[in-house]
């Protein structure tokens, strides 16, 4: 398969991760940080899938499954404890 496709995919996923990291560092409220970290985790799952297509194996499929199953727990726990005073 064409190498350029995977190069473009890698560049786009890396740019998305860097933008999410930027928002995690900068984010004015804790909810912005949680939104950005959720998106970072989804980008990681997509990157694992793209790597499996590139190297033609299925070894990281359980890791993807576990990440997709437990990714929501962190933001749910943080959202439970957000109050009016915790704006950073």
């Amino acid at each position: 398969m064409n190498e350029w496709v995977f190069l473009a995919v890698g560049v786009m996923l890396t740019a998305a991760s860097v933008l999410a990291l930027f928002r995690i560092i900068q984010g004015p409220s804790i909810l912005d940080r949680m939104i950005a970290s959720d998106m970072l985790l989804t980008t990681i799952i997509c990157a694992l899938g793209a790597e499996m297509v590139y190297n033609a194996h299925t070894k990281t499929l359980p890791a993807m499954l576990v990440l997709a199953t437990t990714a929501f727990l962190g933001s749910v726990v943080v959202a439970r404890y957000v109050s009016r005073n915790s704006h950073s």
Partner: protein
Amino acid sequence: MIFDTIADILTGVFLILGAFLSLAAGVGLIRFPDAIARLHATTKPQILGLAFVLLAIALQERRVSTILVLGLLLVFQMLTAPVSAHMIARAGYRGGIIAPESLFIDELGQAIDDAPQEEREPTKPNHRRQPTE
């Protein structure tokens, strides 16, 4: 074989679509002004972008066991991603992080107003339930 060529081309297209959705979410995360607008931007690739990537994997590994696991993965993501988005949006509304002036329609506020007084959750700051001994 012609089928393998078509599957390879479709795999590339799906991978690029999924990666582009992630990139669009990242750009929206930086550009949008508000927590709830950023939530809107980032919840799109959580299911659709992942579905594109999973389609690409399924086109490359055409085995029943792999496709079953991929379907399970998509189902779990579809179950859990809306939960976290809902909880974050609700916490933002309740915690006062989302400005009420930025909302065009405020159905949750109307529902809170309609609810009986004793069923409302405390919205005051620092109003925490004391731990019972």
